[in-house]
């Protein structure tokens, strides 16, 4: 047990270590608050509020299923999920805060760098669920207790098995530049999707802007959210997905759709999605309850089982039959790097892909 746990940590830290942990290891940092367990007092307080507004970029059916599970666990608290691309959510939250609107109680973003900004602004509430303190690697939780990584997932390549034979399928990002894929690919947009923002940063770091320039010449169908390319692929609208959520592909494949993920030889971009509570939350207790519940072993296990994502909770095991993240060559995450490069990525990407 212990051995497995360590190796798991090694993999996650070694190949996908997040910079967020170190960014905030500044000398002036406050102490993270005492870990909190789910108590009947917390549940009662949450029920009194009766409602929770959750901003999230998770694929809608996945997010709503999570919401329903929460409602079932704590009858009397309803959850409203605001789903949109993370970059859009980030912009809206900024817009709403600027106008003194405090709609969002709790947020899960697919661009970990957003939490750098929100923390800098002083918008986040320190709150550490017991499970996070006990079972989450330090690099996946904020030292001040402002947020914790609720899920890890990948942005991979994939293809439609009706349209592409396995032996012809691309094996690497470089393969996507082959003329035979011109006009046959779909990809999502870094100015809308945090997943794609994070993935684009890693691709540019590993392969350079030149790769993006050449990809842009391939007449790629440009959708917005990273949850869309898997769906376009399974409809057969395009033969190859140049980027997009790997978990979407896995779920569709398990549902019998003709899609197959490809983990590129250069490594697969890795994304981690932290969750944090806003200091201004109108339903703070419901938010705390949700945050605590979301990071328990049970919820994390249930979540990765139905969503095909990965958990950094030390006790969670991957679902039998699914590929383990430790078997996949990953690209390294760097939220701080993303934060510095966001503007450049948006501008240069728009220039290359013309939208």
């Amino acid at each position, binding site marked *: 047990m212990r051995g497995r746990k360590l190796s798991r940590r090694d993999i996650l830290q070694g190949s996908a270590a997040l910079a967020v942990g170190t960014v905030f290891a500044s000398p002036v940092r406050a102490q993270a608050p005492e870990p909190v367990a789910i108590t009947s007092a917390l549940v009662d307080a949450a029920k009194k509020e009766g409602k929770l507004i959750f901003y999230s970029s998770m694929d809608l059916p996945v997010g709503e299923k999570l919401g329903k599970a929460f409602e079932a666990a704590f009858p009397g608290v309803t959850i409203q999920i605001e789903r949109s691309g993370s970059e859009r959510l980030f912009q809206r939250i900024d817009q709403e805060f600027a106008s003194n609107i405090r709609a969002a109680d709790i947020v899960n973003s697919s661009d970990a760098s957003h939490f750098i900004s929100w923390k800098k602004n002083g918008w986040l509430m320190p709150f550490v669920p017991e499970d996070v303190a006990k079972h989450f690697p330090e690099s996946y939780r904020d030292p001040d207790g402002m947020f914790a990584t609720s899920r890890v997932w990948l942005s991979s390549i994939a293809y439609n098995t009706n349209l592409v034979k396995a032996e012809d399928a691309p094996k690497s990002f470089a393969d996507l530049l082959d003329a035979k894929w011109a006009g046959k690919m779909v990809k999502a947009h870094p100015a809308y999707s945090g997943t794609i923002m994070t993935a684009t940063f890693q691709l540019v770091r590993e392969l350079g802007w030149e790769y993006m320039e050449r990809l842009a010449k391939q007449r790629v169908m440009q959708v917005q959210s990273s949850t869309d390319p898997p769906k376009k692929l399974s409809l057969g609208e395009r033969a190859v997905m140049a980027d997009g959520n790997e978990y979407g592909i896995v779920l569709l494949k398990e549902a019998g759709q003709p899609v197959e993920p490809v983990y590129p030889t250069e490594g697969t971009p890795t994304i981690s999605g932290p969750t944090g509570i806003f200091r201004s939350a109108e339903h703070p207790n419901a938010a705390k309850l949700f945050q605590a519940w979301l990071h328990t072993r049970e919820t994390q296990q249930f979540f990765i089982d139905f969503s095909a994502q990965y958990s950094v909770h030390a006790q969670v095991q991957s679902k039998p039959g699914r590929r383990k993240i430790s078997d996949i060559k990953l690209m390294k995450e760097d939220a701080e790097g993303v934060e510095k490069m966001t503007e450049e990525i948006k501008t240069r990407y728009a220039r290359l892909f013309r*939208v």
Partner: protein
Amino acid sequence: MTTIATDTPRSRLDLTRPILWLFAAFMIVLIVLPLSWLAVFAFTDKARHPTLQNFVTLFTDPAFLDPLLTTAIIATTSAVACCLVAAPIGWLVSRTDMPGRQIIRALVTASFVTPPFLGAVAWELLAAPNSGMLNQLYRYLTGAEDPLFDIYSLTGLIFVISCYTFPFVFVLVANALDNMPGELEDASAILGGKAWTTARRVTIPLAMPALVAGALIAFLQAMTLFGSPAILALPAGFHTMTTKIWSLFQYPPKLELAAAAAVPLLLLTILLLQGQKVLLGRRGYSVLGGKYGPPRPIEMGAWRWAALAFCLLVLLNPVFLPYFALLNAAFSPNATTLVTPATATLHNIVFVFTELSSTQLALKNTVILGASTATIGTTLALVVAYVTTRRVIASHRVLGFLATAPVAVPGIVLGVGLFLSYTRPPFVLYGTLWILLLAFLTITLPSAYQQLQAAFATIHPELEDASRILGASRLQSLRQITAPLLRTGVIATWCFIFIGVMRELSAAIVLFTSQTKVLSVLIYDLNESGDLAAISVLGIAMLVITFAVVLAVNRIPMFGGGAGAKLRNS
């Protein structure tokens, strides 16, 4: 006589003026405030120092010029396409003995009621190059490799925009033809004019103003639409002005550029409105006001059926095919697979109504906003139309201008203006339904005003004068004389605004928050994540609500319910 006159009736307060000034003030706040903020942002930098730099950036960067050109192409071709389709159908419906004329009118109304963004999604289901149902069918039938249609293209976008813009032209043309006195054509015929001569010398010139006005409206609609380009142009890799402006809201928002980018659209609109005046000159085409015989229907013989086939063929595009695609997707496990009894599923419906947590809220918000905007907007338009047609106050022209001005402001630009106006004191409305109400009011006001102005124009002021001479106050004469005559126009305007609110996306997309989400925004979000089946279910629900409300309003007894075809006046 004189003493009596000064003593008694004049002591009664005539509330007209104060009420009118109140309305004027409201209109100024409604329209001038957001436009002023837009102007301020367009001509200043971040520190609010005056500058023209925004325009320099705009006109030297191909990333802005390309969308401007694209938008001009889209608007022009859509306007032409709409006229080419709407004019013959309008004529057939209004002037011939073609069978099923009422059905054709109803179907055009159905295409008008369909929100353009929903139509765009439906056409994705039909004509996406690889997964689209029509392309699948084509490949199946011919064995071809290449798709027949590619909806993700400039042509595809123009096609879809035209599908949902032509009703505007149709309504104007059909109304003009409906109201044209048959005697004029009869006279021409009696004087020996052949059918074509009569058409060329009498009918077409009389219908021309309506057609030009229709072309103009179609142009403006196509130019300012946001949903269809966002859904179809972005995957194809190009922007229009509205999607470009929207992209300027990405964090960090470049509001100055967004405001400046709106200026070319404004100028283009003003230019067009002027052009229309020059084109039509000051010739009066008014033929309303007397009792004329109804137009003589032209007997088409066997051509009647060909004409009907033509109309149905055209209506395949905005109505039959898209509705079929939406219904199919709603029950399909995979949005573009043809449903069979064996594969039909209720999963999508269950998902939308029991799992999707924003459905109820968005439904509620949309209906509240639709009904309140329609009620307030109709009242406002009624008052302004009254003031301008009866020249009640000196500044009636200003009021008329204010009511028409928003037509030049694209919804998304107005959204920006309202956002700038109402996110800071004294009016902090962002995050409430009020800001959406203001947006929808402003957007629907020009057409509501024009409709009611036209309705007023058909009621001779002498009727009111008679009532006032007999001692009634202005408000009394309005209530007793004018109101009953306006009933049909008022109901039509109410429905028109209600439908307009259901269709509206471009301003809402800038102004909504999680608590003030409306159906159109929810559908746009679902499209962004590719949840086409959920969109289909919501879209159908939206259409059902719209039709139900419109039918219900038309049946309210106090409004003289049961009278059909009210919408044709819209």
